C-alpha cells in the first residue's frame, strides 16, 4: 500500500462510532414509568460489546435474558479490523493480502453482529422497542470500506499465490466446507416438559435444526404438533404460559401465538446458496472453465448464505416469525450455535479466493467460453417463455360498478388460462369473485342484469379468441426458435402475438359498457408486451456469431432510457388528471370525467380568475424585475475586469459567488437575523439614523410592502457574482490584439470598454436574455416559499408557489385537477416562449439558442 493514512482514518471512524448511540430504546407505556426508567435512553455498540445482556436491566426484567445480544461477533469483528489496519503498515511479503483477508473477516463479523443485534428491533414481545440509528452501521461500513481500500491498494503488491490452480483448489475446498457446515446444527431447541400440557409434545419439540433441515422444510412436523398450543413468556415475570390459539380478527398481537411454517424465503435463499456453492466448487475444479464462473457463483452463494445466516441469527424480528422453532428460539427455549456464521464466513472466503484467482490470472479481459450465438438464442427463448407465462397469468381485471356510483361492486380477474379453457365468458358475466353477486337491482332498467351479462359475455368471447390466438402464436414462435428454423417467421409470429395482445387489451377494456364495468390490464399484461418485443429483437440475431455493436450499445443505453421514461415522460400521463375531477386514492377508472371544465373554470369563475390574474401579475412582476436588471452581471464582469490586481480580483470573485452556493432556507435565516424588527442590525442602524421608531419598530421582513423589490434584492445578492463568471469567461476569450490595435489608435479605457469589451459580451448576454425570457413563468418556488407568510402572501405568490399552496400544502381540500390544468398551460406557454425566443435568435443572429 502506498498511502496508509486512510487506513487509520477508517479505523478512527469505526472506533468512534462504537461509542455513539447505535439504537434508541422506547419502552411501551403499558409497562409503566417505573419500568421505563430502568432502561437507558440509548445503547451504543460499545455497551453491547462490554456488557452484553447486562446493558439492559436484566435484574429487574428477567425476561430480557432471553435476548441474544451478539457481543462476540462484534468484538471479534472490531479486533479483526484493528489487526487488519495494523498489518497494513507492515512491510513484509504477503502482509497486504493478510490485511485484505482480515478486513473481509471483520466486515463479515461486524455485519453478522450488527444485523443480529439490530434485528432485535420490535422484540421483547413487542413491549420494548429498539430502534436502530444510522451510527450502528458505521463500523460495518468502515470495515467494508477498509476491505475495498485494501483490495484497491493491492494493485501493485506482489502476489503471494501466483498459482491459479492452488487458488482454485482453495476456493473449491472452502465452498465444500461451507456446504458441509450446513449439515451441522444451526440452533438447538430445548423445551422443558413443564411448559406443555403433554410431555410428548415437549420432547417432539426438542430438536436441533441445521440449515440443511431448513432447506428440506422438516419443520412442518413441528408445525403440526405446535399448531394448537403455544407458549408465551411474560415480559415482567419471565414466566412461560399457555397461549390461546391465533384468531384472525385479534388486533392485540401480544399474547397471541401462532406457529406457521412459511419460511419459504429463508429456505429458498439457503437452497439457492447450497446449489451455487456446489456449482462454484465443481466449476473451480475444472481448469477449462473461465475463472469468472466459479467466482460469480461463489460470490452469489456467499451472499445468499450470509442472508440466510443473518436471518437465523436475528430471531427477534416480529415480522419474521417464520417458523415454529425460530419462534421458540425467540422465547428463549434454545440457543443459536456459531455454525451458520462459520459457514457464511467460509463461503465468503471461498469467493475471495476465486476473486484472487481472477486478479492474478493472465488474461486481461473477461472471455466468455459460451459462444455468443448460443447465448443470444438462449435469451430469445427465455424471453418468449417468460412472455408466455405472463400471458397465462392473470392479466385483465374487470371492475363492476353500479351506474353513477364510484364504489366498485365486484371485480373479476381473468387470466390467459381462463381464456384458453373457455371460462372467461362465464367469469365475466357472472363474477365469482364478488361477495354479492346481485350487482344490478331491478330498478336500474337501463342496466338490467341480462343486458350487462350479454354485453360482458360478448366482450369475454372476443377476449377468449384473441388470447387463444396470441398464446398459440407465441408457442409457434417458440417452436420455430427451438427448432432453429426461419427466424423471420419467428419474429413475425412474435410481433403478431404482440399486436393481438394489444387488441385483446382494448377489447377487454373498451368492449364493456363503461358506466357498468371497466377493465384494466395489470402488471403481467404490461410485462408481456416488452418481453415479446425483446424476444423478437434477440431472435433477429440468433443466427449471428455475435450481437452487432450498434445493438449492444443500444442495450447499454436502455437502462438510462428507462430512467428518462420513468421520471420525465411517465409524469406526462398525469396530465390526464386535468380532465377528471381527480380524487385521491380512487383508481383512474372510477374518476369522474369532466372534460375541459378546469380550463374554462380558470377564466369564467370570478374568484379563480382573480387569483390567476394576481398570481400572474406577481410572476411577471418579479421575473420582469430580474429581466430588467439582467445586464448587471455583465457590467459587474466588465468593471471587475478593469481591476488589475489579480489577488483582489480573485478575492472578489470567490466571495461574491459564495451566496450562490447556499440554499434559500439559509438566505431566509440571514434575512431573519439581519432584518429582525427589534434586534436586527438593519433596524438598529435605522434607529440610530432616526428613520425607525425604537418603541414601535417597523417590521421589515414580514410586511407585504415592496415585496417584489425585496425579492429582487435577495435574488440579486445571491446570483450577481455567479452570473458574472460566465461573462468573465467570455472576456477571457476576447482576442487581445483587438485591444492592442485600439490602444495604438489612441483609445482610452472607456472607449476600450464601450467599443470592444461590451460588444463582444453582447452575444452571450443575448443568449442568456432569450433563455430567461423563455423561463419567465418558471421562476421557481423555493425563494418565495421561504419568504412567504400570511401577511405577504397576496403579493409573493408566484405560479409555482400557488400550485403548491392549493395542492400539497392544503391537505384535505387539494385541487389536484385544477392545479394540473394550470401546470399544463404553464408548460405549453413556456415551450411556446422558448421556441419563439429561438426563432427570434435565429432571425437576428442566425444562431439557435437551444
Amino acid at each position, binding site marked *: 500500500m502506498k498511502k496508509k493514512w486512510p487506513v487509520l482514518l477508517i479505523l478512527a471512524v469505526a472506533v468512534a462510532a462504537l461509542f455513539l448511540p447505535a439504537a434508541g430504546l422506547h419502552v411501551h407505556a403499558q409497562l409503566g414509568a417505573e419500568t421505563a426508567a430502568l432502561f437507558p435512553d440509548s445503547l451504543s455498540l460499545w455497551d453491547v460489546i462490554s456488557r452484553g445482556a447486562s446493558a439492559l436491566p436484566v435484574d429487574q426484567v428477567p425476561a430480557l435474558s432471553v435476548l441474544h445480544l451478539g457481543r462476540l461477533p462484534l468484538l471479534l469483528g472490531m479486533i479483526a479490523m484493528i489487526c487488519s489496519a495494523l498489518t497494513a503498515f507492515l512491510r513484509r511479503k504477503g502482509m497486504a493480502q493478510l490485511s485484505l483477508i482480515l478486513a473481509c473477516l471483520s466486515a463479515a463479523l461486524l455485519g453478522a453482529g450488527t444485523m443480529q443485534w439490530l434485528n432485535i428491533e420490535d422484540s421483547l414481545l413487542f413491549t420494548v422497542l429498539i430502534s436502530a440509528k444510522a451510527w450502528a452501521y458505521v463500523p460495518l461500513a468502515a470495515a467494508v470500506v477498509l476491505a475495498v481500500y485494501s483490495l484497491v491498494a493491492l494493485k501493485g503488491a506482489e502476489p503471494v499465490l501466483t498459482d491459479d490452480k492452488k487458488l482454485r483448489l482453495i476456493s473449491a475446498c472452502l465452498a465444500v466446507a461451507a456446504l458441509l457446515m450446513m449439515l451441522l446444527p444451526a440452533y438447538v431447541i430445548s423445551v422443558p416438559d413443564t411448559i406443555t400440557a403433554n410431555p410428548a409434545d415437549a420432547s417432539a419439540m426438542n430438536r436441533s435444526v441445521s440449515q440443511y433441515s431448513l432447506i428440506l422444510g422438516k419443520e412442518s412436523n413441528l408445525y403440526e404438533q405446535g399448531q394448537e398450543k403455544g407458549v408465551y413468556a411474560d415480559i415482567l415475570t419471565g414466566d412461560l404460559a399457555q397461549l390461546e390459539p391465533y384468531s384472525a380478527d385479534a388486533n392485540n398481537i401480544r399474547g397471541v401465538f401462532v406457529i406457521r411454517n412459511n419460511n419459504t424465503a429463508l429456505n429458498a435463499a439457503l437452497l439457492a446458496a447450497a446449489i451455487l456453492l456446489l456449482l462454484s466448487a465443481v466449476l473451480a475444479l475444472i481448469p477449462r472453465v473461465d475463472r469468472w464462473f466459479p467466482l460469480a457463483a461463489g460470490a452469489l452463494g456467499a451472499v445468499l448464505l450470509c442472508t440466510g445466516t443473518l436471518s437465523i441469527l436475528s430471531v427477534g424480528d416480529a415480522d419474521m416469525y417464520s417458523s415454529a422453532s425460530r419462534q421458540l428460539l425467540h422465547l428463549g427455549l434454545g440457543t443459536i450455535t456459531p455454525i451458520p456464521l462459520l459457514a457464511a464466513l467460509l463461503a465468503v472466503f471461498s469467493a475471495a479466493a476465486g476473486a484472487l484467482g481472477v486478479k492474478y490470472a493472465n488474461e*486481461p479481459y473477461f472471455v466468455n467460453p459460451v459462444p455468443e450465438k448460443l447465448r443470444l438464442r438462449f435469451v430469445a427463448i427465455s424471453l418468449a417463455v417468460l412472455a408466455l407465462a405472463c400471458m397465462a397469468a392473470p392479466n385483465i381485471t374487470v371492475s363492476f360498478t353500479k351506474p353513477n356510483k364510484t364504489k366498485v361492486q365486484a371485480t373479476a380477474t381473468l387470466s390467459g388460462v381462463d381464456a384458453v379453457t373457455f371460462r372467461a365468458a362465464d367469469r365475466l358475466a357472472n363474477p365469482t369473485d364478488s361477495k354479492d353477486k346481485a350487482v344490478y337491482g331491478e330498478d336500474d332498467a337501463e342496466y338490467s342484469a341480462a343486458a350487462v351479462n350479454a354485453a360482458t359475455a360478448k366482450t369475454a368471447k372476443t377476449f377468449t379468441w384473441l388470447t387463444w390466438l396470441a398464446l398459440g402464436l407465441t408457442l409457434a414462435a417458440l417452436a420455430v426458435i427451438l427448432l432453429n428454423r426461419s427466424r423471420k417467421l419467428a419474429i413475425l409470429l412474435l410481433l403478431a402475438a404482440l399486436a393481438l395482445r394489444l387488441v385483446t387489451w382494448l377489447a377487454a377494456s373498451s368492449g364493456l359498457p363503461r358506466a357498468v364495468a371497466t377493465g384494466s390490464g395489470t402488471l403481467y399484461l404490461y410485462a408481456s408486451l416488452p418481453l415479446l418485443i425483446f424476444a423478437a429483437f434477440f431472435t433477429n440475431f440468433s443466427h449471428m456469431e455475435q450481437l452487432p455493436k450498434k445493438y449492444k450499445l443500444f442495450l447499454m443505453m436502455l437502462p438510462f*432510457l428507462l430512467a428518462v421514461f*420513468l421520471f420525465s415522460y411517465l409524469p406526462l400521463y398525469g396530465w390526464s388528471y386535468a380532465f377528471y375531477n381527480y380524487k385521491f386514492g380512487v383508481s383512474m377508472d372510477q374518476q369522474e370525467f369532466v372534460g375541459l371544465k378546469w380550463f374554462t373554470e380558470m377564466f369564467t369563475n370570478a374568484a379563480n380568475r382573480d387569483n390567476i390574474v394576481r398570481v400572474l401579475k406577481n410572476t411577471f412582476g418579479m421575473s420582469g424585475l430580474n429581466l430588467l436588471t439582467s445586464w448587471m452581471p455583465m457590467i459587474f464582469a466588465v468593471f471587475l475586469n478593469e481591476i488589475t490586481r489579480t489577488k483582489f480580483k480573485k478575492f*472578489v470573485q470567490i466571495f461574491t459567488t*459564495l451566496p450562490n452556493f447556499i440554499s434559500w432556507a*439559509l438566505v*431566509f435565516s440571514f434575512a431573519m437575523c439581519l432584518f429582525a424588527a427589534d*434586534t436586527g442590525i438593519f433596524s438598529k442602524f435605522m434607529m440610530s439614523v432616526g428613520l425607525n421608531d425604537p418603541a414601535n419598530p417597523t417590521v421589515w421582513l414580514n410586511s407585504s410592502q415592496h415585496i417584489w423589490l425585496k425579492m429582487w434584492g435577495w435574488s440579486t445578492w445571491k446570483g450577481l457574482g455567479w452570473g458574472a463568471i460566465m461573462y468573465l*469567461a467570455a472576456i477571457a476569450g476576447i482576442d487581445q490584439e483587438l485591444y492592442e490595435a485600439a490602444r495604438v489608435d489612441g483609445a482610452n479605457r472607456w472607449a476600450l470598454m464601450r467599443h470592444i469589451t461590451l460588444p463582444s459580451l453582447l452575444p452571450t448576454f443575448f443568449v442568456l436574455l432569450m433563455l430567461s425570457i423563455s423561463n419567465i413563468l418558471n421562476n421557481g418556488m423555493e425563494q418565495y416559499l421561504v419568504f412567504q407568510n400570511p401577511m405577504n402572501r397576496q403579493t409573493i405568490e408566484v405560479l409555482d408557489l400557488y400550485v403548491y399552496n392549493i395542492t400539497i400544502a392544503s391537505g384535505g381540500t387539494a385541487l389536484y385537477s385544477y392545479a394540473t390544468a394550470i401546470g399544463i398551460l404553464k408548460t405549453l406557454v413556456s*415551450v411556446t416562449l422558448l421556441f419563439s425566443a429561438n426563432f427570434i435568435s435565429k432571425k437576428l443572429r442566425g444562431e439557435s439558442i437551444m
Partner: protein
Amino acid sequence: MTAIDKKLEKAMRENHRKNKQKLSRGDIAFNIINYAVFVLITLACIFPFYYLFINTISDNELVRLGQIQLYPRGIHFENYVQVLKIPGIIDALFVSIARTVLGTIWTVGGCAFLGYLCTKQEMWLRKVWYRLIIITMYFSAGLIPWYMNLRMLGFLDNFWVYVIPGLVSPYNVILVKTFIEALPPSLEESATLDGAGYTKLFVSIIMPLITPILATLCIFSAVGQWNSFTDTMMLMPSGKNYTLQFLLYKYQNEASSLAALVRNTQDSSSLANVATKQTALSVRMTVAMVVTLPILCVYPFFQRYFVKGIMIGAVKG
C-alpha cells in the same frame, strides 16, 4: 491548465504592465471608485455570514437585546453544544451526508457513462435516443403529475427518492458528450484492438481523461443535493428521512418551542446562566450556522473547479 486559463493569465499580466506604465488622473479616480464599489459588494456578500457567526458565539442575553452588531461579546460555544443535542439533528445530518454522497456518485456516474454512450456514432438510432433525452430539459409535467408519479412508483417516504430519479440530467449529459467528442479518437481505437469492450474503454481510458468535467459536475450535484429541501417537504409526509436543510426550514417557524425543548434537556447549572441560555433566536441562528459550516469549509477547495467548469460550458454555449 486549459488554453482559456493561459489566455486569461496572459491578458491579466499584459493589462497589468500596460497600466503601470502611465496612470492618468482620470484612471486613478476610476480605480479608486471601482475598488471601493467592489469592496462594498464583497462586504455585502460576506457580512451576513459573519453577522450570523458572531451572534451564535456571543452572550445570548445581549443577542436577545440586539446588542451584538459588529463584533462578538461574551464568547461561548454552548449554543453549538446544545443544538447538536436536539433530537433528530444528528440523524438529519447523516441523511444529508448520505444523500449528498450517494446522489452525487449516482448522478455523475450515470451522466458520464450516458454521455460516453451518446458519442458512439454506431449506436442504433443514436440521434433519436439522444434527442429524446435532451428534449426533457425543455418541458416539465408540472408539480402534481411529478408528485403523483413518484407516489405511484413507491418513492414517498423513501430515502432513495433523493438519489435514484437523478440518474439522467440532460444538461450534464451534453457537457460530458461535448467534452468527450473533443478527445482524439485514436486513444480508443488502440484499446479496441487489444480487445477491450465499451465498459472497459470507458473505465480505463475515458474516465481518467474527463476528470476535470466530472469534478465540476460533482460540485454542482453535491451542492444541489446538500441545499435541496423542497423535495423533503413534499415527499416525506410521515417525517422520515429529514435532511438538515429541511430541519432548518422547519425550525424557522417553530424555533420558540424548540428553544424550550433544548432548555429542558440542559442541566440546571447551565440553565441558571442567562448568557448561555437558549433563546428562540439563538437556536435558529445556530442551526443555520451548522448548516452553512460544511459549505464554508469545502468552498475554498472546490472554488477553482467551478470556474473552470462554467468556462467549459460557456465556450460550448
